[in-house]
């Protein structure tokens, strides 16, 4: 091999390596694991700050989701539609209309709401990126969601919890989160429980620098007749985080709130 040939071969190898390297980098951005090392986290999209659904959008969504005639409402099976109706009747009548069906939201007993309802309010959420994991800090109930992006599968027999077990992966700049092992105490929405068989897929991406979109599909073969799909647009807030815990819960008992005067 002449020097000239060697030079060409070296150039080809370098070019090939560069092309392969670029292709690999692209492949890594388009699918598969990202954020597995501290260096790689720098290539993830900037989701810093606090994300909030504007209040008007939140209450419009709440009305649509609560209205059984809305195409956006979950298609509940009869037992779970009964929870919704009992809760509404309680609001109208002022007491529990159905014995044995307390029709209460978890929050009224200072219990966490859990997934998916945790993500349906107008309270803030934050994202933390660390190697192999995305952590969601939710204002509501001061809840932490751990989303493992290190390639692990769901555990074969995970304990059921309010937040469930979340496994994520990146598809380009979209984080796809698959959540199972959700406790039947967790709520689809206030006063309507999940069944223990709920499965949630969230696709999270930036719309632009100030807007983050989460597309959610909730499946529950016992509570839902069909998958429940909804999308929410969050705005990046500059106001920081507010605590939202169950501290001075004066409404705990149905019928009459605690009217004990507070200290001045």
């Amino acid at each position, binding site marked *: 091999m002449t020097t000239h040939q060697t030079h060409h071969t070296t150039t080809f190898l370098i070019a090939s390596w560069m092309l392969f390297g670029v292709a690999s980098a692209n492949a890594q951005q388009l699918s598969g694991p990202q954020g597995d090392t501290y260096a790689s986290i720098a290539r993830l999209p900037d989701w810093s700050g606090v994300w909030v659904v504007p209040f008007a959008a939140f209450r419009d969504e709440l009305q649509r989701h609560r209205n059984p005639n809305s195409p956006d409402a979950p298609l509940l099976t009869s037992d779970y539609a009964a929870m919704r109706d009992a809760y509404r009747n309680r*609001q109208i009548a002022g*007491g529990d209309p159905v014995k044995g069906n307390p029709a209460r*939201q978890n*929050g009224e007993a200072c219990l966490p709401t859990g997934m998916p309802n945790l993500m349906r309010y107008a309270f803030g959420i934050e994202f933390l990126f660390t190697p192999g994991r995305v952590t969601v800090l939710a204002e509501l109930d001061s809840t932490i969601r751990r989303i493992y992006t290190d390639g692990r599968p769901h555990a074969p027999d995970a304990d059921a919890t309010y937040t469930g077990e979340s496994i994520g992966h990146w598809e380009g700049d979209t984080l796809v989160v698959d959540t199972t092992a959700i406790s039947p105490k967790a709520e689809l929405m206030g006063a309507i429980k999940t069944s223990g068989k709920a499965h949630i897929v969230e696709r999270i991406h930036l719309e632009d620098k100030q807007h983050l979109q989460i597309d959610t599909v909730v499946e529950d073969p016992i509570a839902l007749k069909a998958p429940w799909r909804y999308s929410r647009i969050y705005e990046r807030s500059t106001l920081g985080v507010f605590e939202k815990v169950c*501290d001075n819960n004066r409404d705990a008992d*149905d019928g*009459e*709130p605690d009217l004990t005067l507070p200290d001045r």
Partner: protein
Amino acid sequence: MPRCTCTDAIQRVLVATIVLSLADRAWAHHSYSMFDRTRRETLQGTVRVLEWTNPHVWVWVDAQDETGKGTTYGFESSAPGELARFFGWTKNSLKPGDRITVEYAPLRSGNPGGALIRLTLADGRELPMPSSTAPARGRGPEPGRR
């Protein structure tokens, strides 16, 4: 007679539906079944204390009836985070002694208190909140900043 009863029933259902619809916009995390949200009452008084607490903020108001008898009323509102982020409130939005007018859905029990619907300060400014007509604008308009 039956027609009248039927009409009354329909009217009650319609009123309840409309009021609950409005109420659902305002209160999302608790049922508030102890409040009669088909009714509205108004009270003038002075702020005893703004209880800036989770899960909900309470406004305590001292008021006197026509005989001069004093009563303290408790009014429930939303979470501090919602009032602060969307409606501009702070823990100092109301101070003891502030004269205010409160519109509220009363407790079914008749006890002194209710769900806060609208709050107007002595100078006529309204503190915006989810149930009031004042619009939410980002962090909220200036009335919440005192």
